[in-house]
C-alpha cells in the first residue's frame, strides 16, 4: 500500500553530489576514528588533525563545484545553492581553523574523538544551511548540538563540565521550544517545506505564534539578547577549539536558517510585523553585548560577549530583506570568522595543555615578551572594533549601508553606538598588552608547543587585511525557492 507519490521520487546521483561535501566531512570523522585504532600512541593527535584537515579541504573542493551548480537535492529537502554553499564554506573554514587548536586539549582526552565530533558538528551545521524542510533543519541542529554537548565537557576542568551541563540543559530546552514551533508550523500549513510557509492560511494567529517559538530557537543559537544568557558561561568553560568552533560555525548554520526563513518563507505583507522582534533582539545584542564586554577579565568570555554584538550586526543586515543586505551579511560573516578565529588563534598560541591562556592578567605586558602575538591580537581586535584598514571596517561599512538602504535608521544608529562602545572593550586589551612590564617572572611562562596556531594566525591576518583592502563580496544568489 505504498503511495505512488512516495515512489515516484527517484534518487539520482545528483542528489548525492549536492551532499558530497558533508559526506566527505562526516566520512572523514569515521576515518579519523579508524586510524586512531591502528596508529602508534605518539601519532594520534597529528594524524587526527591531518585527516580532519584533509577531509575538510576535499569538502571545500566539492563546495567550489557546487557553487556553480545549484541543485535542490532529495526533492527539495536539501538545497545546495550559492547561498548555502557560501555558508557551508564559512563553516568548513571555521572548522579547519578550529582543528588547528586541537593540541590544547589535555593529553588524556581522545583527540580522535574530539576531532571526529568537531567534524560531525560541522556536518550538522552544514546540513542546516541547506535545509529545505523542517526535518533536515531539526536533524542538522541536533547533530550539531549533541556533538557540542559532548565536546564542551571534554576537559577535566570543573569549568568545562559546568559549561557542558549548562549548555545541555539550556540548549535542549531551547531546541524543544523551537521544535514545538516547527510542529505548530506543520500543523498550520500541513507541510514541512519552507516554501509552504510563504502562503500561510489567512487569519490564523497560530501561524504567527509558531513562527515566534521558531525564532526563539534561532535567537538562542545565535546568542541574541536576552537568549544569549548561556553563551558567556559556555564559551568560557568549553575547551578552546570548541569555543572557537561554536563562535563561528554554529552561528553560520543558524544565520543561514534565519536568512532562508526571512528571504524565502516570510510572506511579504507580513514581514514588517513578523520580523520586528528579531530586529529588537538584534539591537539589544549590539548594545548589551558590547556593554557587558567592557568589564570582562577572561578573553574567551569577552569574545563571547563581543560575538553577541557582532552577530547582532549581521542580523541587522537582514532588515528589510534586501538582496544587498544578504550579500553584505555574508561578507561580514566572513570578516567575523577571520577576526574572531584570529583572536582565538592568538589565545591558542599562548595556551598549552595545562593552561588556556585566556585570562587577561596573562596578557599584561605581552607586547614586550611576545611582540608578534601582541601585534596580531591587536590587529584582530582593531578589526573587531571595526577600524580601518581591516575587513571589520569594510564589513561594517557595507552592513551599515545596507541597513540604511533598507530604511532602518534606528538600527543603523544603534549599530554605530554599539561599535563605539566596543572600541572601549577592545582597546582595554590592547592597553593591557602594551602596558610597561613590571614583573619579569612572567617572561617565558607561556610557550606555544606547536606551530599550528601560527598557521591560523597567518591565514587570518592575511584575510583580515586582504579582505579589508580588496573586499571580495560574494555574489551569492538569493536562497533558492523550491
Amino acid at each position, binding site marked *: 500500500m505504498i503511495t505512488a507519490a512516495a515512489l515516484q521520487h527517484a534518487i539520482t546521483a545528483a542528489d548525492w553530489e549536492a551532499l558530497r561535501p558533508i559526506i566527505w566531512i562526516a566520512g572523514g570523522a569515521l576515518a579519523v576514528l579508524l586510524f586512531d585504532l591502528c596508529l602508534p600512541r605518539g601519532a594520534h593527535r597529528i594524524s587526527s588533525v591531518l585527516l580532519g584537515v584533509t577531509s575538510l579541504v576535499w569538502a571545500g573542493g566539492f563546495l567550489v563545484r557546487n557553487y556553480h551548480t545549484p541543485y535542490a537535492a532529495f526533492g527539495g529537502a536539501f538545497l545546495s545553492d550559492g547561498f548555502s554553499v557560501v555558508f557551508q564554506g564559512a563553516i568548513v573554514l571555521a572548522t579547519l581553523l578550529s582543528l588547528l587548536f586541537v593540541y590544547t586539549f589535555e593529553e588524556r582526552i581522545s583527540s580522535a574523538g574530539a576531532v571526529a*565530533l568537531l567534524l560531525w558538528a560541522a556536518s550538522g551545521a552544514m546540513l542546516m544551511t541547506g535545509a529545505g524542510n523542517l526535518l533536515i533543519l531539526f536533524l542538522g541542529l541536533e547533530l550539531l548540538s549533541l556533538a557540542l554537548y559532548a565536546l564542551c565537557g571534554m576537559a577535566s576542568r570543573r569549568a568545562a563540565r559546568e559549561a557542558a551541563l549548562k549548555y545541555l540543559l539550556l540548549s535542549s530546552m531551547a531546541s524543544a521550544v523551537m521544535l514545538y514551533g516547527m510542529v505548530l508550523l506543520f*500543523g498550520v500549513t500541513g507541510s514541512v517545506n519552507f516554501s509552504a510557509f510563504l502562503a500561510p492560511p489567512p487569519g490564523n494567529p497560530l501561524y504567527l505564534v509558531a513562527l515566534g517559538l521558531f525564532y526563539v530557537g534561532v535567537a538562542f543559537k545565535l546568542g541574541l539578547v536576552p537568549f544569549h544568557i548561556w553563551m558567556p558561561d559556555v564559551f568560557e568553560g568549553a575547551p578552546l577549539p570548541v569555543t572557537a568552533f561554536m563562535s563561528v560555525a554554529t552561528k553560520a548554520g543558524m544565520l543561514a536558517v534565519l536568512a532562508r526563513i526571512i528571504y524565502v518563507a516570510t510572506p511579504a505583507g507580513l514581514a514588517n510585523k513578523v520580523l520586528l522582534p528579531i530586529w529588537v533582539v538584534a539591537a539589544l545584542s549590539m548594545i548589551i553585548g558590547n556593554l557587558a564586554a567592557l568589564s570582562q577579565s577572561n578573553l574567551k568570555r569577552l569574545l563571547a560577549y563581543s560575538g553577541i554584538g557582532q552577530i547582532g550586526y549581521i542580523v541587522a543586515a537582514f532588515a528589510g530583506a534586501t538582496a544587498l543586505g544578504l550579500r553584505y551579511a555574508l561578507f561580514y560573516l566572513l570578516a567575523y570568522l577571520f577576526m574572531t578565529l584570529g583572536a582565538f588563534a592568538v589565545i591558542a598560541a599562548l595556551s598549552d595543555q595545562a593552561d588556556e591562556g585566556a585570562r587577561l592578567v596573562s596578557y599584561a605586558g605581552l607586547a614586550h615578551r611576545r611582540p608578534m602575538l601582541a601585534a596580531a591580537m591587536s590587529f584582530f581586535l582593531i578589526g573587531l572594533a571595526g577600524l580601518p584598514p581591516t575587513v571589520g571596517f569594510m564589513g561594517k561599512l557595507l552592513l551599515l549601508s545596507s541597513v540604511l538602504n533598507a530604511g532602518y535608521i534606528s538600527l543603523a544608529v544603534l549599530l554605530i553606538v554599539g561599535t563605539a562602545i566596543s572600541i572601549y572593550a577592545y582597546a582595554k586589551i590592547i592597553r593591557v598588552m602594551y602596558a610597561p612590564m613590571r614583573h619579569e617572572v612572567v617572561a617565558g611562562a607561556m610557550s606555544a608547543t606547536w606551530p599550528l596556531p601560527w598557521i591560523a594566525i597567518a591565514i587570518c591576518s592575511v584575510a583580515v587585511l586582504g579582505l579589508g583592502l580588496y573586499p571580495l563580496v560574494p555574489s551569492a544568489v538569493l536562497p533558492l525557492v523550491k
Partner: protein
Amino acid sequence: MLFWFLAVALIASAVAVVTAAKPVYSVIALLAHFVTLAVVYVSLSAEFLAVTQILVYSGAILILFLFVIALLSSGVDSFEVGPDRLPKLPMPALFALVITLVAIVFSAAHAFAHVLPVITPTSQLAVGSAAAFGSVATFGAMLFTSQLLPFEITALILMVAVIGVVVLAGDHATLTPPDHERLRAIRRREREAILREGEAS
C-alpha cells in the same frame, strides 16, 4: 470519551514527574506517561510510532535514567536537599509559562475551530487506503524513499551519541595524574604575584 480519559492520565503522570519527591518516582511516572502516550498514538492510527514509543522510550531511555540514578546514589534521597538559593524563581516562571500557554492555546483554539480540518474518520484520509495510514509498511516505504535523507542523518546522530558518551566516560575512567600539576602550581603563584602587584599599584 477515551480522549478525555487519556488526557487526564497524561497530565496527571506529567505532574507526577515534575513534582515527585524522589527521582525513582519520577522515572516511574514518566513510564506511565510514555505508555499512555503510546495508547494515544494508536488511537490516532500511528501504529508504528506507538510501538517505537514503547520500545525506545520505555525500553531504552528510561532504563538509562535508572542506571544513572543508581550510579549517582541519589535516587533514594529526596531531590531538593539543602537551602533553595533562588526562592523567588517560581512566581516569574509560572507567569511566563501561563502567558505562553494562553497564547498557544488561545490561538490554537481560534485556528482549528474555524479554519483547518478537524480530525476526520480514517476512511476519508487522503493517503491511499485507510489501512495504509500509519502502518509499518507505509512508514517504512516513506522512510527509505522520500525521507531517505533524514533517515541517514539519524545514523550520524546515533554515532555522535555513542562516540560522545565514550569520549566523556573514557576521560572519566582513565584518570591518570596530570603531568602538568607542578607547572600549573608555579604559574598560579606567578599570576597571583602579578595580581597582588596590580592591586598594590
